[in-house]
């Protein structure tokens, strides 16, 4: 499921880290361990992503972090051609997808769609997560990418 030697986009893009107050630290630590963790309120069971200090529905503080299966379906997508960062110059097109997780009340997350960057993309298509680890980077981090089923 993971291969530290492959990356979808070139090195040099910003590295994700938790905020100084640690709000998203469990999420990033989960990815490093090959797990997708998202928030789910312990009181009213509402799913929440990205994280916040309280449940947006019942206002209970510190929603629990729950592991969910990294699979979903494409809610929207884009194919970027223009390099908006020096690291992308000369790289060519790439695809970003917005994936919804039906088994977690439709929370959404952004990743890249692996495979041919010029492939046809269909909204509604099923995808599964692929962890992309970067142990060589400082700080180390992992991303969650997606591929068609």
């Amino acid at each position: 499921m993971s291969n530290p030697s492959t990356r979808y986009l070139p090195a040099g893009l910003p590295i994700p880290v938790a905020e100084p107050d640690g709000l998203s630290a469990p999420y990033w630590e989960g990815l490093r361990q090959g797990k997708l963790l998202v928030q789910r309120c312990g009181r009213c069971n509402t799913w929440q992503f990205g994280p916040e200090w309280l449940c947006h529905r019942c206002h209970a503080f510190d929603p629990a972090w729950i592991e969910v299966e990294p699979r979903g379906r494409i809610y929207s997508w884009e194919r970027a051609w223009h390099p908006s960062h020096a690291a992308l110059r000369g790289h060519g097109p790439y695809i970003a997808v917005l994936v919804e997780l039906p088994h977690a009340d439709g929370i959404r997350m952004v990743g890249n769609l692996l495979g041919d960057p010029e492939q046809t993309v269909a909204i509604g298509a099923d995808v599964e997560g692929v962890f992309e680890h970067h142990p060589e980077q400082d700080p180390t981090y992992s991303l969650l990418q997606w591929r068609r089923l």
Partner: protein
Amino acid sequence: MTGRDERTLRGRVAVIGIGETEYYRHGASPDPEFKLALKAILAACEDAGLDPREIDGFASYSDDRSEASRLAAALGTHRLRSATMQWGGGGGGCCAAVANAAAAIVAGLADCVVVFRSLAQGQYGRFGQAGGIHTVSGERSYLMPYGVLAPPQRFAMRVQRYMHEHGVRQEALRAIALASYHHAQANPRAVMQGKPLDVEKYDASRWIVEPFHLYDCCMENDGAAALVLVSAERAAEFRRKPAYLLGAAFGSGHRAAATAHNAPLYATASFDTVAPDLYRMAGVGPSDVGVVQAYENFTGGVVMALAEHGFFKPEEANDFLTFENLIAPSGRLPLNTSGGNLAECYMHGFELVLEAVRQVRGTSTSQAPRSDVALVIGGPMVSPASNLILGSEATL
């Protein structure tokens, strides 16, 4: 206590002067940003016939760096009474800043407020390039490592979803770009005057990010623009035909800013709640509006914003959004009659507010035949977004 409908800005303040600097390509301004702001403010005062020392308030948005107290000191104003900054980035605040200034006047906090935006990207860097960042947290951490770096990539998926849900075709986006460029050809202030756009040139232009071609994306520019607001009672003291504020609104719907594209209503320009608020305050509806300036960060946002302001149903976008319908003076709904963010100048939408004033005055270079009620829509797809309606004296 008074009900919300009695607490209104309708007809209480008027724009008495507008002014701008020369508009430049990004990085091309010979003047630093603060100097641009001063020039635009003085131009607006000159237009009104107002002694700049009478200004007692400043309002802006998007973290404008030309700070109110420094402006007051530089201009030697007699006193400072109001200094308001609208939270939020991009052009979402271009109408909200006017609303905040108007509210200060109506509430008795200030008498004569300047609203402005100044930008010198050669001095401070561009919006369309993300560089010099090693680590990111919060909202950006869920996007930037995946190449969702700058505004084009941040908004394309929202538009793609909207096009999917409502069957909107690329031609609808193209018509908006063509109308803006058409109007810019008549406007000597426009950066793109002398650089017309046609269907072939649009279709042949490169993708920035699908579904946005190059010409679906706003420019980036240097310059400044300003207007002067006073209470309606004082409007007749000044030499220009007043443009009265009929209404203004800002904000967004339920959890519109939920992190990492998790807004429950995703495929929206953020006016689902804001447009009804505006029409309610202004006491007019979409059929009363004769001319529209709609912020084009990207043409797709304009499609959504116009639909949310009731000009057509989303499913009717392809039929309504044609070049013929959008141009002055003959079109059904003349749109972005100065050239707007695409072709006049990207002054974060403040050039659109000035153009609405010109329409009410009857002095646009692409004058609409029905211009007593002029709508401005700011910063679609951001939160908070904002909008306003200006009207002539006949609409009061």
